[in-house]
């Protein structure tokens, strides 16, 4: 199987998927960073 190799710009709708995917991993990560910051501020 061969696939066209000419660079093709990602479609506009794909950026919506990108935003959803990053939100799905970003929310737990942001929660984790927030919880860590809550602990970390105790040093100051």
């Amino acid at each position: 199987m061969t696939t066209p190799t000419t660079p093709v710009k990602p479609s506009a709708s794909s950026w919506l998927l990108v935003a959803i995917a990053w939100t799905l991993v970003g929310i737990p990560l942001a929660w984790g960073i927030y919880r860590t910051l809550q602990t970390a501020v105790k040093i100051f």
Partner: protein
Amino acid sequence: MAGLLAKERIIAGPGFNRWLVPPAALAIHLSIGMAYGLSVFWLPLSRAIGITQPAPGDWKVSTLGWTFTFGIVFLGLSAAVFGRWLERVGPRKAGVAAAFCWGGGFLISALGVYVHNIALLWLGIGIVGGCGLGLGYISPVSTLIKWFPDKRGMATGMAIMGFGGGAMIGSPLANLLINHYATPTSVGVWETFVTLGAIYFVAMLCGAFGYRLPPPDWKPVGWTPPAVQSGLITKRHVHVGQAWRTPQFWQLWVVLCMNVSAGIGVINMASPMIQEVFGGKLIGVAGALKDLVGDQRLQVATIGAGFAALLSLFNIAGRFFWASLSDYIGRKPTYFIFFALGTVLYAAAPSAGKIGNVALFAGIFCIILTMYGGGFATIPAYLADLFGTQHVGAIHGRLLTAWSVAGVLGPVLVNYLREYQLGHGVPAASAYNTTMYILAGMLVVGFFANLSVKPVAEGRYMTDAELAEERRLAHEGAGAR
């Protein structure tokens, strides 16, 4: 099912957005990153029988700590052993295997806790889970490097940042679950293991099914490879079987081992270290840690935990920052900074402790931890530069044995030296000084290992025929890059 996981099936179509691949990798790395947060289970597990306090037959924290050691050792071993397999079958199958191992490992450990069998606990998260760590860790590396030829460091840095951040999510989540499940007859850990195992299994499957490979000859729109490349960046490819026979592989092995040993030692002792070095100064009262009483000790311990948390933030920030920076300044100069600046900072830490400057002391270790994380995140791009991209995942897997060694060497060295110093009458506040100088010495070794890295010898690269055969075995098109 096998077809669903096949490498041919995940070749992206035209117009696929490459920015979908890093979150897939992050889903896996954030899950397996909980390996760094396992210590949250040790205290409750140390009273699994006694419930409110340790009883006869309860496990010691030091015994439980072996679970982490097994995990890191098996991470390196499985990455080394299965790296070549991963290159052939593709990242999706490897990601699914990692999900079964890591999620399944939690279930086996849950059974181990339920029947109170330490061997099952070690087997679950330590050995089976450790294999999941290795497979999951290397699964996105070569894929990301192929999708981001223009930003190799940044791309792998994003994924490996997730491994550093996993414990930030997993530790507080585990605490919430333990408190939720705790009853008068259970400390709530086996139930937490089952829940976390299920969550990680699903998250990792989502990540694995999000992986896509670029089509043959793919390159980003508007990007052309630089016509003139540095001698340390090759367009050719070294076979994994050849790579580990080159001096460059072992130089980078030493680079990673020294950088990780020093950093992992600090991570392990961060909380007790700041408490013992500054004692009452942390809360504005005179006296060493041993002179403090009740509530004062509690306040100092809270600050110690805050210091450890602060370091973990800088650890993950460094993974993204340094790996991205290496795309602009080059990998070798990036490691020069790690080792030169790191040596100075480790050597300066005892003085900061001696003059009682908490902010300076904390600042030094925050910078050190960015470079610890940066060392992990930049190494895949360094390997791709030197050995090419064809087998970079497998070569990275073999290099991770350096992490296994460092995972044992760093903590053992730091703990042994501390005990030795204390045993010879050195005050607790000064017990870390010699350790810091030794860690600085290890970075000097890393500095010279990095200095000695030269381009791979011509005879080590695959010929066109060998490369074509490798690509056939890897189910790639003839023109794949």
